[in-house]
């Protein structure tokens, strides 16, 4: 390690192709776990596995490509990215395609595309760019500016409505501010403001189905066959898994289809049922490994922009994991967030791995920067 640092000519093959090996291994392991669980949850459907494999291959390719781009280029492109993203979000609200009760897609003729996915990357990039222009810690004025940059896409996405994504995007921006050293006093006031804002959200911004989700979250047994069904069946699946689980392919809640959304948002319940508490701990170790690795990359980055971007991406990844596990196990309301790297499907996989590509770029190309 020391040698590598000292002698640029002796860097490993992985560094030459800008791949962070530990991170890659962590990601691949989780993907592998995901394939096993999808196979079980999807009723042993090989087609499902094939499609997921294609998706994973595509996402990994994107990651590889993204990792080759120098962080400086990202920094330069941050504003363009952000502006294009905002424009597309507006376009979605104006002319987007409606699916599943929400207006999230832009139909480009040859493919459908969710602009909110771009924002998952564009927002932390833009925030990191904006904040890193000033000396850290940021002053109040800059923080207000950062908030403005954050609020616009968050509200646009919340309006689609896509509460899960807007939550992730908001937190990615907030992480930038926090990591940049936003003062605790300010953090406290924002928290107070936010809690004051909650009733306003409830009465003016949230749709009925979202309110219903929250109510169901607070008391799922009030409607065990209706809106509470998901979460009740999910808790039964998790709880009945016990300490060591029912075994792969032997989860009755999933195999007998009592559990809804088995291979997508609720895949964690399938995992918990079949692999039990021990399995969960191992899974969390894997996730923690990736997060710690991401944070190491962030702290090692030599430049504020890279630090903030890497930190934000990593922490948002954790939010992903936490929100999904929390909602499936009943400590958070059900918002549509998949379990990253494990759940079947989604454009989100591509975005996620593009983010990891950036992390790798930051982790492996720091020597190109001058102090």
């Amino acid at each position, binding site marked *: 390690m020391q040698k590598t640092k000292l002698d640029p000519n002796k860097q490993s093959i992985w560094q030459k192709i800008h791949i962070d090996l530990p991170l890659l291994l962590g990601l691949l392991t989780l993907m592998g776990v995901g394939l096993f669980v999808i196979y079980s949850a999807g009723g042993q459907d090989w087609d499902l596995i094939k499609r997921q494999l294609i998706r994973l291959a595509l996402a990994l390719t994107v990651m590889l490509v993204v990792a080759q781009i120098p962080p400086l280029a990202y920094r330069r492109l941050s504003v363009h990215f952000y502006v294009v993203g905002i424009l597309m979000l507006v376009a979605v609200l104006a002319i987007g395609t409606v699916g599943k009760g929400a207006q999230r897609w832009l139909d480009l003729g040859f493919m459908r595309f969710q602009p909110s996915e771009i924002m998952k990357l564009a927002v932390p990039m833009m925030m990191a760019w904006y904040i890193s222009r000033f*000396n850290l810690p940021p002053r109040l004025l800059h923080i207000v500016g950062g908030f403005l940059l954050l609020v616009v896409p968050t509200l646009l996405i919340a309006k689609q409505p896509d509460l899960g994504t807007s939550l992730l995007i908001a937190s990615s921006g907030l992480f930038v501010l926090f990591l940049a*050293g936003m003062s605790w006093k300010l953090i406290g006031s924002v928290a107070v403001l936010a809690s004051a804002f909650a009733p306003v959200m409830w009465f003016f911004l949230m749709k009925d189905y979202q309110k219903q989700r929250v109510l169901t979250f607070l008391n799922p047994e009030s409607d065990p066959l209706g809106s509470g069904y998901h979460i009740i*069946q999910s808790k039964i699946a998790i*709880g009945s898994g016990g300490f060591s689980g029912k075994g792969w392919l032997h989860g009755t809640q999933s195999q007998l*289809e009592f559990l809804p959304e088995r291979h997508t948002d609720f895949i964690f319940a399938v995992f918990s049922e079949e692999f039990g508490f021990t399995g969960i701990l191992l899974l969390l170790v894997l996730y923690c490994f990736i997060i710690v690795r991401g944070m190491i990359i*962030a*702290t090692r980055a030599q430049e504020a922009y890279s630090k903030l971007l890497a930190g934000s991406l990593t922490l948002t990844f954790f939010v992903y994991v936490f929100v999904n596990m929390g909602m499936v196990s009943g400590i958070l309301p059900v918002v549509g967030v998949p379990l990253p790297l494990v759940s079947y499907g989604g454009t989100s996989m591509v975005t996620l791995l593009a983010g990891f590509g950036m992390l790798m770029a930051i982790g492996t190309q720091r020597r190109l920067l001058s102090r």
Partner: protein
Amino acid sequence: MPPKRITIRDHSAEANLFARRTVITLLGILGLLCVLISNLYYLQVTRFQDYQTRSNGNRIKVLPVAPNRGLIYDRNGELLAENRPSFSLEVIPEQVENLDNTLAELAELLNISSEDIEDFREELKSQRRFKPVALKTRLSHEDVAKFSAKQHRYPGVSVEARLTRHYPYGDTLTHMLGYVAKINKKDLQKLVEAGQEDNYAATYNIGKQGVEKFHEDRLHGQVGYQEVEVNNQGRIIRTLEFQPPIPGDDIVLNIDVKLQKVIQDLMAGYRGSVVVIDPNNGAVQALYSNPSYDPNLFVHGISSKDYRQLLQSPDRPLINRATQGQYPPASTVKPHLALLGLEEEVITPQTRMFDRGIYQLKNVERPWRDWKKWGHGWVDVTKSIEVSCDTFFYDLAYRLGIDRISDMMVKFGFGDYTGIDLYEESDGNMPSRGWKRAKHNQPWYIGDTISVGIGQSYWTTTPLQLAKSVTVLVNHGTRYVPQLLRGRYVDGQLQLNEPRELAPLVLKHPENWDVVMDAMYGTVNREHGTARKAFKDTKYISAGKTGTAQVISIAEGEEYDAEKIAEHHRDNAMYIGYAPYDNPQIVVTVAMENAGGGSSQAAPIARQVMDYFFTIHPLESHAENQVRSE
């Protein structure tokens, strides 16, 4: 666009700040993970049992499995009641989303009548949860195919193959064999009271009449259980455990269905009944009531039109006349009365009287007439039985008094249930002073006693009772309970039932049995015997007694219909008999409503029954010779 007031960035300070914040976030992550993990620990470890139970509750259902009903055979191994597979359309209402629409669509698809739908809805009310209810039974193969093609559209509806009862002999055995039909509310209540509810959890039909009802416990068997795994649609994925049901006993009856069939043919066109009993053990070999009906109608639910027809028919086919028909025994009980007279020494075998066709009591204006206007002349007890002299028995009854008659006749089984293994039985009536006081609040008149002497007055009996009394005579006092059940199969081996014997009727003067038996022999075989013509040239020797009863009523509790008097005014024809005389194998009683005289109508039928019996049970030659040589 570079920032304007830029100071020199302190990179190491920024890095430190960032590192501090990183540590804080990592600590925050750790905290959140603790929350997550402790919740998962709570779910998976603390409350594991709880959730495991709920998970199993989701997937495991315990389904009762109906036992196969025992088969019923006749004494010769003929199958009288069998189980046949049939398809029925069944609905689990809890699994149907929109019952009204589903019913309407199925009605159209499979041509289900609105009556069936109404019955179905009626039945829904009484069914327990998640028990399938039959919407249409006896589906044709075409119906099955039609439904199967569209089954996916109707969750909770399925075609089920199950075994249903079938009676291959149809109306030949109805009253005796009975039938099974759907368990109704009343049956269910009785099952609950008997603690049998669980045993019938998967059973659809229950014995409603006859042997099927009386021997229900034997025939039904023990319910089994199937523990199955179901998916969220309620579809069975696999069987986890199977505790097989224990089938009901296969039972054998004393009935000879061929004999029964012969009797049915003989009785065509009459209202009446024939009973054949083996006096040696009380085995009931035939028990037929005419008119009859097809019991198979009831198994699948009789249509209300058919049922109304049966219920309203003036011939009352639903009654088992052999055990429920109550008739005055008329002259058929003269042997019994004669025996009592001899036993009480009111008369002797030598006692003679002159019958001039009329019997008159001192101080009573009204005379009692003999059936023969000019009388029978000099008669003793034997001749009185042979020619059925009424006057002799008027006098005998007068001298015995009702108390002694009543006491003795009860010992023959009159006025009481015979104890046959059927629930459909009447007890008849053996009148007494106490009975008349209780029933009519009137004193017993001497005139009542005199009518009792010829088996009339308030005396009523069922044909089976009469047959049982004859077995007592034939057995010289040994008394058997008439039994339909002959035995049951245990592991393929027939285990016979022991005959049920009651305390015997013991006479002080046992020789009196023979006097009476001889008189019955004379009735059939001597010159003036009332049954001589009917039994001319038989290959066996029988004995018997004819009876012709004035009609009072058919069955207790039946309304007397004034308009029907004309039709139903004719006498009932009765006959009791047994054969062979010296070694009796069968006792036969015939009761025919409004058919006329016992000797002209009933005796010929009894003869043909015996003729048939002895063609299939040829007498051993030595027994025959013995009879001839006597």
